């Protein structure tokens, strides 16, 4: 029993050293050099949050549901309050979008936005009306594929980096005139 265990342990140690040597000599790298290469998120990414102020009823459900208290309600000129998101706190959970009863908040897949100062992260309702301009650094989106049959890792281009477009509004919701 004990002899068998010791044999197994020694074999495991030799095995793992062999595996390490194999990868040291012939590495398979998964690294994607962002931002020189943009990884493919397969369309499932939670990004920048847009707002149609015409649809918002100022119910503040979004501000209350937000787990990080990122949403502040700003008083606008027409005497009503609209949400503005502090991206320094937002964790992109999109609970606010799920909670909004009138689909006034909408999701996008814009993820490559960065800020120089903390004040720039505070989005006011008018800033949330149109998507931020994100510079396009590279034209292609790449994806790491593990070819199990050949036992190697390759990077393939999976199409162009498209323009970010806001999603079309959900139909049949009453629009509140402001």
């Amino acid at each position, binding site marked *: 029993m004990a002899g068998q265990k010791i044999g197994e342990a020694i074999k495991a140690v030799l095995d793992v050293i062999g*595996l*390490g040597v194999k*990868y040291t000599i012939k590495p398979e790298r998964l690294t994607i050099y962002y931002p020189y290469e943009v990884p493919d998120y397969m369309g499932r990414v939670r990004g920048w949050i847009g707002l149609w102020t015409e649809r918002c009823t100022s119910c503040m459900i979004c501000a209350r549901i937000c787990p990080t208290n990122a949403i502040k309600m700003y008083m606008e000129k027409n005497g009503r309050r609209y949400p503005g998101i502090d991206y320094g706190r937002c964790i992109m959970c999109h609970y606010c979008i799920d909670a909004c009863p009138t689909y006034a908040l909408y999701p996008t897949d814009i993820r490559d936005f960065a800020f120089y100062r903390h004040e720039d992260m505070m989005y006011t309702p008018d800033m949330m009306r149109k998507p931020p301009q994100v510079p396009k650094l590279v034209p292609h989106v790449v994806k790491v594929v593990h070819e199990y049959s050949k036992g190697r890792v390759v990077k393939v281009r999976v199409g162009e980096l498209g323009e970010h477009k806001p999603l079309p509004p959900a139909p049949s919701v009453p629009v509140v005139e402001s």
Partner: protein
Amino acid sequence: MEIPSWLLSPRLWDFLFDAVVSTIVLLTIVWAERKIAARVQMRVGPFHISPRLGGYFQLIADAVRFVMQEVIITVDSYRVLFVALPPLFVTLALMPSFMVPLSPYLALLSRPSLHYGIVMALAILFYLFIIVVGIGWAVNNRFAYIGAAREALIIAAYEIPLLDAFASMFLTYKTIDPIEIVAKQTYIVGAIYNPLAFIVYIIGVAMATSRFPFEIADYEGDVATGPYSDFSSIFLALTYAGGIYIALFSYSLLGALVFLGGWAPITPGPWPADVWGNLAAAAWVMIKTFALMLFFVFLRSVMPVARLDHTLSFSWRWLLTIALAATAVSAAEYFLL
């Protein structure tokens, strides 16, 4: 023009060679450790500083960062030792490599004291990790205490087998003189004379210098770099981020001399006449040292971390047994060879 005699002194050349080459070896080994770990983990590793050289200068950038960083001495620490122990650590870690010869004629010490070079080097290296316990006490936070306690337990566990491994080799060679030890390995290296002692040496050094899988005292997942957990800036560079690698270098140099045959196939002539032969011998020792270090840092990329109690029971139960068996083998060789 006559070359002044002090310019050809073997002590000066030994010192210069050791200092310069050990610096290069250390820079390369840390870079190699990062690169190997990155390759095994399907990453790239250091790259963006000097991409043509594979990010080799990343380490120099890190060193500059360590030196420029603000020196923070925490309020709760024992300030004198907090400041004094890191330089002491690095000094003691580097000292053993100056006590052993790099070729039959290149040595800092001269005859009667050179005879005891390896023994003195071992004595200093065993003191070294007591300093780590001292650092844990001086840093004085809970992680440092736990790390220092772990280090103390591990010191007790590896010291006897490691010493036993070296003692067995002394028994095999029937001498403790480093030059004679290398002379005896001209045809067969020590690792083949007594493979058990070599295994004990490998495991013991991995434990002594906190290589994986024995990175227990300063394992970041458990104790946040343990005894060094409040160190930053130059203190971190002198201990955790640099000093331990220097200790690894010293241990590997001893291993290269005792187990891998030192400068063995090369037999240079006397010093001032055969300068290039002596330097080639020294370079050959350094290549062996580098190979040993490469193995030790390679372990990081493939090994898990062992638990403290497993390590202690493994050490006292198996490592000590193997070490005693190695002594038995050496005793047999002592009478037969």
